[in-house]
């Protein structure tokens, strides 16, 4: 199945990653990708490559921290986790997303 390019998804990638790590605590990039796909019942497919610049950027901004570790299969991978600042950022982005969704919904219904 060809992956669906979803422009809006790119903009909210940060929010999705933050939420994922908020519940799953510690994950590597591949696991984050598959998790988002699973939980969204395959409605959202992340352009896999674009995840990594986003992850590193979020780390630069202090919302994530990373460390090298071993998976269950004993492979080396980089694991990410939320920082307290990241948690605050998540709350902010959730709020603005909800506001956006409500606003768009109203326009679609009443306009």
């Amino acid at each position: 199945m060809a992956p669906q390019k979803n422009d809006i998804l790119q903009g909210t990638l940060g929010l999705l990653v933050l939420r994922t790590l908020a519940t799953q605590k510690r994950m590597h990039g591949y696991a984050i990708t598959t998790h988002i796909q699973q939980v969204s019942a395959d409605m959202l497919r992340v352009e896999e490559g674009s995840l990594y610049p986003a992850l590193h950027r979020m780390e630069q901004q202090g919302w994530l921290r990373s460390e090298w570790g071993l998976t269950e299969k004993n492979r080396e991978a980089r694991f990410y986790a939320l920082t307290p600042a990241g948690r605050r950022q998540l709350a902010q982005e959730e709020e603005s997303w909800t506001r956006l969704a409500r606003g768009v919904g109203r326009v679609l219904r009443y306009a």
Partner: protein
Amino acid sequence: MSWMHRLRNALRPGRTERDIDRELTFHVEERADELARAGLEPTEAHRQARRQFGNVPLQAERTRDADLTLWLDALVRHLRLAVRSLRRTRGFSAAVVLTLALGIGANTAIFSALDAVLLRPLPFPDDDRLVHLPQIIDRLGGNLVAAARVADWEDLNTTFEGISSYNTEGISDTTGDVPERVRRATVMPRFLEVFGVTPILGRGFTEAEHTFGGPAAILISESYWRRRFGSAPDVLERSVWMGERTYPVVGVLPASFRLAERDVEWWVPQQVDAPWGLNRTYNSDTAIGRLRPGVTIERARADLTRVQARLGEQYPETDGGLTPGIVPLKDVMVGDVRGSLWMLFGAVTLLLLIACTNIAALLLSRATRQGHEIAVRYALGASRAAVTGHVLAEAGVLAGAGAAVGLLVAVGSATLLRRLAPTLPRLDEAVIDVRVLLYTAVTAVAVALVCGVLPAIRNARGAIVAHGARRTVTPRQSLQWWLVGVQMALSVTLLVGAGLLVRSLDTLSRVDLGFDPDRVLAFRVSASFGEEQDYNRTVERINRTLDALTALPEVEVSATAVQLPGVPGQVPRELTVVEAATETPLVADVRVVSYRYFETMRISLEAGEPCRRTLTSVGVTEALVNRSFVDRYFPGRDLIGLHLAGGSDDRIMGLVADTREQGASSPPAPIVYQCFSAATPFPWFLVRTRGEPASASAVVRRTLSDLEPLRAVYDVAPLSQWIDDSRAQSRLRTNVLTLFAVAALSLAGLGVYATLAYAVSLRRREIGLRLAIGARRSSIVGRYLRSGLGVAGLACIVGLALSAALSGLLAGMLYGVSPYDPLTLSAVVGLVLVVGAAASLVPATRAALVQPMRVLREE
């Protein structure tokens, strides 16, 4: 990601890339595994995984960009580029780095001295609470306090943690084979607590040791411990010999503990209940106090004044009319060096500024040369910031290298400074530490900014420059020439000042002193104030010594004097002549000398008789006056036989010629010579030797050790050396100014060279053209030589005008030379023109050697 992390990523791009590679590869492989499990073939799974991932290298690059902070990466890139382009012009870079090294190094050295002397606290804990307590007698000033009064202050105050005091004296250390002189401090109780010093070995004094007739004890300094006992660990079981008594060592004090008298090596306890300890008029001690935390100086002053008022009521004759003063101890120890140190700092910063303008000019020339490259950069889309950054990076690299080499220079010049100014207090605490390094770093950054800002502005402005066209006419570098001209003018001014000072010193050294200081050895013999009890014995001892010395074959004649002839320091006194009253009292220097003084110093006797050998200390003493005394107050009269009054009663018995015993720079003053060989227990011995005075010193020491085995001979040096030392301050000033002037001239010369060199390099095509159409090489040389000399000449005029304006400043320090001395001025002008010509010659010759065909074919 932390800053450290980012910095590390910037400096090791390879490592970052590998990490990102690993991370992305892991993702692709996991995807491939999953697809393979779903049933695809491994190679096909891999291919599809990669396709699903997207453009791997692109994502890798984007990830890398997210990792590196853009500006940090740009910075490192700029620095690398700057280093590479500077390496291409080695000569230029080396010259600049050296110049900066000298400037920054000198600046750092002076700053470290400033830091050690003025800015850093004294080496005692909480040193801001330490104060000096002088005793002020009826507004006449004063300093020393009686030990008994100090004890009362300590008992009755409420604002001090402790008050103590000390007095120092030179004393004979007879522990070794030969008696040596050692400075000993006698300290009141709680001395160590007030200072906050703990002995590194042993303990302080006990109360018993501070009592009359109590056990003897001594504390020694760390340096003495090293010198006398070789730092032996069992020193606490040893003793020292002071005169004929022995003192067991009870502790060793650390080397960091220094009083204002820096060479104290022994400390003994003051015996508080001894006669001299209870005497309230014997003002011998320097009192120190430590304030309680939070107590201000004003409160403490009020408290002490109250205490002293009470004492004044209790002991009206000795304590009435005295007020205690309070001065922070640091001010006392640092004294009046402040002004000259700050001035030195200002001067050396000015020098650095000159060096910076020089380098700014050089960088400007360089930027002009790179105009083509800059235009191409702009055309390719570089931002203004990027181009400016490149110039600043070059300046930064140069400044950094200069600072690094400059630190070496600073370490070297610290030793030089110590040699030039040995009297500066606390100078040996000057060390290159973190503060000094920080200062150097800040200086380097400032230098980079100052040097780089002009070329950076120039480059930023010249965005659209038509550099495609072949240009044979290049712009004049007026800004650079202005900068060079200013430097030359400044160096002319400095040279004039230095030259005048040098001539003034020279004239001073040739002044006829009226006495003959050559071949005279001066020294002192240790004695103690205790000898004042029995003066007859002292006089006998000194006369005996004099006779023994004169009897030596190496010695012509010897005498004693209280003040060294030729060394300034006398304070004139008021006298009257009994038989010839005048309305105003007469003012004259009073010098106390022994018999045969005039013979020893070769001062000619004009009338009457010289001093006789006296045996008693009471009775009418004899005196001589000099010609100035007679001429000023009693012209034409014969004063022999008359009596002087004012201090002591003397009968005038002779008249001597004028001398400059207050030093060559003071005119002859009226002098009264009182004849008394032992006015203090330790006068100066003056010995006229037949040969060189230095070689006679061994004989003198031997004679004295035979005669007085318990006394040490010290301060031994030829009289001419003492006189030289007294001029050390003005010599230091002259040396420093000369150093600055020479440095400024070298910098200016370098500036002329560099500016002319770049002018030539810019005009190569023009020169080639001229040569091709028939100009002579000598005329090319002449042209450039003339421009260099022209600037030098103009600078001379401006510099001379500036020094004329500043002549008032210098006039006070000159002797026998006018500020407009033609010899000095013409010498300076000549030197500057020669330097200008030499600096211009090299580029001018290089211009003449340009190959026209090669240059004209260049693009």
